[in-house]
């Protein structure tokens, strides 16, 4: 999977209440959740971005709640990929399970808001087309790649992951 898009930069510790405020959790509609994405940081965010754009953030992106509304909102807004120095653990697993592309790179300081990136999920390569620089993301464990390749956790289970890997009761 490859993505190309404009960068929107965020700070460290962006939390799930900022990604999608709890007042909108009474729905699971991607369009509606997407329209309020990042609203409490930037009320115009969902209007400013274009389909395929990329979020680049610092440490601990997605800390807070276990709500998958966060992933639905980011995908619903049209973001193709989130790159951060690290992800909060539930956000990380939800993204894998729901097929939201995420990549960890060590240092995001060389990437500015408005830069254009080309991301190759399989190889973990992140190319800054504006600055002509390449970054290498941490590769994910095989086990996880298998889930992503299947298109998410439930599709993986549907494909027989359930039988192959089921722990004995």
């Amino acid at each position, binding site marked *: 999977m490859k993505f190309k898009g404009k960068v929107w930069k965020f700070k460290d510790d962006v939390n799930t*209440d900022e990604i999608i405020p709890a007042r909108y959790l009474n729905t699971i509609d991607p369009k509606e959740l997407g329209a309020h994405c990042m609203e409490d940081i930037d009320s115009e965010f969902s209007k400013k971005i274009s389909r395929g754009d990329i979020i680049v953030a610092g440490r601990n992106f997605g800390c807070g709640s276990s709500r998958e509304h966060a992933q639905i909102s980011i995908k619903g807004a049209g973001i193709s990929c989130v790159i951060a120095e690290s992800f909060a653990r539930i956000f990380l697993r939800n993204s894998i399970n729901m097929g939201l592309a995420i990549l960890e790179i060590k240092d995001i300081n060389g990437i500015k808001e408005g830069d254009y990136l080309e991301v190759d999920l399989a190889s973990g390569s992140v190319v800054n087309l504006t600055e002509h620089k390449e970054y290498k993301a941490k590769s994910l464990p095989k086990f996880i790649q298998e889930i992503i390749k299947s298109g998410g956790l439930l599709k993986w289970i549907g494909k027989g992951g359930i039988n192959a890997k089921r722990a004995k009761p």
Partner: protein
Amino acid sequence: MAYTITEKILLAHSDKKSIAPGDFIYAKIDLALGNDITAPIAIQEFEALGVKKVFDRRKIALVPDHFTPAKDRKSAEQAKILQRFARKHKIVNYFEIGRVGVEHALLPEIGLVGPGDLIIGSDSHTCTYGALGAFSTGIGSTDLAAGFINGCVWLKIPETIKFVYNGKLKPWVGGKDLILHTIGDIGVDGALYMAMEFTGEIIRALSMDDRFSMCNMAIEAGGKSGIIEPDEITRKYIKSEGRKVKGVFYNSDKGAKYHKVIEYDVNKIEPQVSAPHLPSNSGPVSRFKKIEIDQSVIGSCTNGRISDLRVAAKILKGKKVSSRVRLIIIPATQRIYSQAIKEGLAGIFLKAGGVFSTPSCGPCLGGHLGILASGEKAIATTNRNFRGRMGHPDSEVYLSNPAVAAASAIKGRIAHPEEV
């Protein structure tokens, strides 16, 4: 091989002969929990896959606690999804309004979780049950749907940080203060992906309610789980008030490997307050005495238990809430609500000029029952003070223990319990 308690529980639930941090396992779960925010997505995914049966109707808990009693039509529709699913699959542990409570107070109270269990919940504060010596962790709705189907979850074996608390606690200092102090020390990602094992002479003497408060907030340091080795206090809890939990009592081996060991001398720890907008902005209450407040909230899965209400009542007895403050007290479960009435605590709250509400997560996540307007400040016994968490993005939340929240309600500003 020497293991931590966390490694032992995970090993016992896997099909491996040995494990080490970093290994991935596909583990068998003892309980899968969902609420009215996250379970609707899981149920939708479950049904989209065309699965006919849940893995075990006794090992699923559906707790509509966040936006209930339904705060609006959309919330009512979400709660209805849980109710319909529970009926269709004859889910034993579905709780209707009037029997429900805040999930992380409710499940231990009714004996649905116990030592040695592996519990997943699509709520980040599922880490609470580590207080009983269980491995429990927050996961997403997709994980929950998968759990409903086959009773399994994929997990990476976490490294563990050991936190050792020694010394003597000052008056009005409890589990909430210890955990706020700890998060302030290590930061909101200080235990990212890791298990937080709390130990030391202070922990061994700590009540179950205080242990729940501590493990509840492990996630606020980025932790995968919080855990305390079960002991006689645990044993007494799981056998009292009608609970009949068996449980397996694990403990950490002597030579177990830790990512880090952090020791605290608690003698110096004052009641803590965490300033906006991160739980890690903690410091002694004395630093915040100039902050005037508009609202004080006592409740939530962190501090809505009976001992929290008793402490609040001790401070509020015979006193009046400041004319500038709204005091909102929310018992976490129906049993706590009823106990508070029986013990006369409810009467004390009402006489002081506070509100005593039906169990709900309520304002903790800005849902309902006490939302903040722009520019307003609240002190709350809840777990998060992120921007906009309790309402308007320009409102502020200060976190504290129940004694500080009660004292602050009387004074109209953040106050030490000794001031009233």
